[in-house]
Each structure stands twice: as structure tokens, then as C-alpha cells.
């Protein structure tokens, strides 16, 4: 019996779910399954961990046993995943810097990166959209809705 050995994202996903399920089972062991008062805090996590790990294991076996079926590439071949990656990086940077720089400055950098680097637009587009975004968010969230967004380097 031949088993496909090339590792694909679905293999990784099912393996991760299997290990995650086992992790939940292990951690729920620390919590009580049952007490004098009735079901304990570990009961439901135990059931969930068992369900997750069993189903992930079965899925993994089924996937490994599939032979030579045509599958779509996980990432599209036109390179558009690069844009997705850039957006993820930008969003991560926004989250990391928002408290230090303040929301408005961090937003400006985020928009400039997205429009300029990820979308490769002109300087006019970068400036226009960034200014519009920062002004818009300031007016709507800070002025109108009174949401205390992080000020960062602009004070407390």
C-alpha cells in the first residue's frame, strides 16, 4: 500500500489539530472532571479534546491514503499571496506599534505601506488616501464616538 508522503498544508493542519486535541486532553486532566457537586471544569474540555484528536487522526489517515488526485495549488500561482503576506506583515506591525506610536501615526504608516508597497500606487494616491483615512478615523472615532484610541508619542 503506497502512502503519499509529500507534505501538504492539509497534512500540517490535521496534525496540528491532532496535537492540539491531545494537548487539551492533557491539560484537562489537571482540572477536575467530576466533583462532589457534579461535573467539574475539566469535563467538557476532555470531551472536546477527544473529539478533536480522534477526528483529526481519522482525517489525517484518509488524506494520506488518497492517491494522485488533482488538487489546486494552496497559494495562487499569480503571486497574489505576496500581497496577502505584505498585508499580514503590515497588520502585525500596526498591532505592535499602535501603543508606542499612537493610533493615528500607526494608521498613517499602515495605510502608506498598504497603498505604496502592497498595492504599488502613486505618491498622490498614498498621500490622499492616508490623509483621508487618518482624518476620517479621528473625526469618527475620537471626536464623534469618543473612543480613547492610543495616543502613543503624542501624550497620554
Amino acid at each position: 500500500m503506497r502512502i503519499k508522503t509529500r507534505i501538504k498544508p492539509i497534512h500540517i493542519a490535521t496534525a496540528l489539530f491532532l496535537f492540539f486535541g491531545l494537548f487539551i486532553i492533557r491539560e484537562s486532566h489537571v482540572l477536575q472532571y467530576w466533583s462532589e457537586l457534579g461535573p467539574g471544569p475539566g469535563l467538557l474540555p476532555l470531551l472536546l479534546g477527544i473529539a478533536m484528536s480522534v477526528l483529526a487522526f481519522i482525517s489525517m489517515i484518509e488524506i494520506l491514503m488518497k492517491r494522485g488526485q488533482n488538487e489546486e495549488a494552496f497559494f495562487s500561482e499569480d503571486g497574489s499571496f505576496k500581497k496577502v503576506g505584505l498585508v499580514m506583515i503590515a497588520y502585525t506591525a500596526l498591532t505592535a506599534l499602535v501603543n508606542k506610536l499612537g493610533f493615528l501615526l500607526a494608521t498613517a504608516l499602515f495605510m502608506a505601506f498598504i497603498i505604496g508597497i502592497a498595492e504599488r500606487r502613486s505618491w498622490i494616491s498614498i498621500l490622499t488616501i492616508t490623509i483621508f483615512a487618518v482624518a476620517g478615523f479621528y473625526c469618527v472615532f475620537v471626536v464623534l464616538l469618543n473612543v480613547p484610541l492610543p495616543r502613543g508619542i503624542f501624550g497620554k
Partner: protein
Amino acid sequence: MGLWENLLMGFSVALLPVNLLFCTFGVILGTLIGILPGIGPGATLAMLLPLTFGMNPTSAMIMMAGIYYGAMYGGSTTSILLSIPGEASSVMTCLDGYQMARKGRAGPALGMAAISSFIAGTLSIVAMMLIAIPLASYALRFGPAEYFSLMLWGLSAVAYFQSKSLKKGIIMAAFGIFVSTIGVDILTGVGRFTYDVSEVLDGIDFLIMIMGFFAISEVLLTLETESGREVFRVPLKLRELFPNKQDYKESFGPICRGTVVGFLIGVLPGTGPSIASFLAYGLEKKFSKRAKELGTGIIGGVASPEGANNAAATGALVPLLSLGIPGSGVAAIMLGALIMMKVRPGPFLFQEHPDLVWGIIASMYIGNIMLLIINLPFVPFLAQILRIPYYILYPFILLFSFVGVYSIDYSLFDLWLLLIFGILGYFFRKLDFPVVAAVLGIVLGPMMELALRQSLILSRGDWTIFLTEPISAFLLALLFLTLSSRYIKSIFQWIYSLLKK
């Protein structure tokens, strides 16, 4: 109070100026969202949820319901004009709607989409009124065991319908329920999976998962599939918007069939408007007098799926309002909103908050009329929003989600969780792991666990309580049928092939 008295009370609530305003805002926003590909009612409601914190629950729900069924109206616009479905529920409309536009009949196609949506929406609201109340009354007999079985069946149905792989659906449901267990256990005060991180002691807000899975991941997926599409070109002059007599005659059957199929499918948990429109179109292929011409630009091919998706959107609210079980992913968000606003969902809703329930029902009648009035003459103008390039739109979606999550607890930790859920959601959806199941899991998880533990306390640890209680046993039988239906179908097919031989 009788049905009519309740409905009149509902109209007295829905016709309040503030509720009319929110209804109008909701249906217009919903139409715009429906027109725009790449953003759906789920992502929109997720982004608006934080804004509803201080709102009156009735007004908030009226607005959200308006967005939901408004998106069903709007989704047909790009399907017909550009062969690009604005929503998943409008995919089938592309087939005949775009062909009608190519033949110079875009106006009647748009007009019939609006009229069919109006008729189906109105009829399904009537059906909702007639079904929801008896269902809610019956559900008052439910005890913890029944509730647990009902939620288990609802989750399993979502897992079944939302993914080609039932196993993936159940894994996601389990994942969502697991996330809901993180934090301090209410009954014992013990911290679960907190690892001394103070930010998770109160648990993880389901809004963060909803935003990440619906809004962020949708943007990331759309970026990958929509690259290369720049500005949409929209034809401006559409003078003849009204169908002719022959169109009305040919649409009568499809609208009726679409309404019935759509409503029944919508009531089932986990299905929703997309599946309803597919099934309605499939039904037309079998029963329509012009079945062979479907796909070439016949009016029935527009009327049926458009009626079905609106009927399904209304149908999805039946289990939400009467049982507290959402019938679709968007209804799950609305359930989350009710919980956030400290309104107890479930059969007690009709007793404890009759103004809210009947206000929503009455506002849906009003909203459907508004949508017909807005869509018939104004859709060509509303469609101008398609001129906004997606590269301008999506950063705003990401930022709205960012601010929305931050405004929950002003916590940087929540923003990191949003990022994690967004990236996870992207990969889950790429790998066909249904995120709706996870969202339903995190929303229903606390109630499920409470029901499970109450049942076992009542039965003193005897698990057979779920089988000895008749309603619970029936629901578990439904669960078994749902989970095994694919295998039962295969077994019957195998027996049939054997008999044929």
C-alpha cells in the same frame, strides 16, 4: 395577547422615528454591502457590533436585520450587471441575470430581483410569525437536557452543511467551544487554560473571533482571488426597470417555489441563503416549463434564487428568535449581539422582550417595502459604489475591525488575538475548515456547557438522561440522522446498484 395585537404592538415599536431611522440605515447599508463584492453582511455586522454597545437592543437588532436582508437585495445587482456575485447567495442569479443584461434586459432583471425578493421576504415574514410563536411556546418545556441536545444538533447541522467534510466541521465546532472555555470557570472559580495571563481570566470575547474569522480573513482571501481586478465599470442608464406582463406570468411559479424552498432551508441551522438559492435554482431545472432554457437569460432564473435567498434570510431568524439557535453565520452574530446586550435569547424572548421580537418582525415588513422602493429606482445610482477600487476599501475594513476590537476593552492583547484569529481564519477557509462552525461554537459554548452540567447534576451523573427525556432523545435522533445522512445515502445507493445488477 393574540397574534394581531402583538403585531400591532410591534408596529408601534418599529414605527418610532429612531427605529425607522435605524431600519433605513440598515437596509441601505445592507444593499450597499450586498452590491460590493469582497465584503458581506457577516463582516459588516461584526464591524458594527462594538458600535451597538450603548444602543437600545431593539434598535440594534432592527438595524442588523435590515443589513442582513438588505444584503440579499443588493447582491443581485452585480450578479446581473457584471456577472460578479455581490454575495455567495447571488451566485445563481449570475447565470440568467447577466445573460438578460447582455440581451439588453438588465432593467427587468433588476426589477424582478427586487420584486421577487419583496414577495418572498414578505411571505416568509408571515410564515416566521406563524411558526416562531408555537415553536417558542413548545420550547418552554425544554429543560437542560433538551437544550444541550438542541445545541448539539444545531452545531452538528452547521458542521454538516458548511463543509464537504463533516469531520472538519466538527473539529471547528470543537475548536470554537474550546475557546469559549478559556477563562475562569463560572461554577467552580477555577482558571482554565489561562496560564497566569490576566487578560484571559474573563475569557476571550467572541467578537474578536467573529471579526477575525469574518472580516479579516475575508479580506485576505479576497486579496488573493481579486488581484488584477481594478475599477468596475457600471452602465448608468437603466430606464426600463419594470418587467412586462409576460415576465410576471413566467415568474409566478419560480417565486412561489423559491419562497418555500428558501424559507424551509433557512430555518435549518447551518444552511442559510447560499444553499437556499442553489437548491431553488436546482428545483427550477426540474419543475420549470422553460427548464431547458435556464442559463440563457430567462426571468425565472433570476426570480427563483433571489426569492429563495431572501426567504432563507428570514427563515434563519426563526430558530434564533424562538429557540436561541442561529440558523446561519450572520444569525450567530446577531445572537452574540443579544448576549452582549444582556438579552437572554431563546423561547423566553417572546415573554421577556415582546417589544424586541415583535419590533423586529414589524420592522422587517417595513424594511422590505423600503428595499423595494430603494432598489427599483435607485440601484443604478447605488451601484456607483462599485467604482471604489478594492485597494482603497480593504484597508478601511481592516482598520474598522482593529478599532472595533480595541473598543471592547481597550486592550492590546485583544488586538493580537484579532490578528491571530484573522490569520487562522484565512488558513482555515483555504483548507475548507468552516469558520461558521467555530463561531457558533464560541457563541453557544457557554450555554452548552451550562446545560450539560445542569443535566448531569439533575441526573446525579447519569448520562442516559439525554436519552430518557423524550424531546432530548428525539433531538439526538435528528443529530444521528444528520451526521449519518451521507453514509445512509451511500448505503442506499450501494443497495440500489446491487439490486440493479
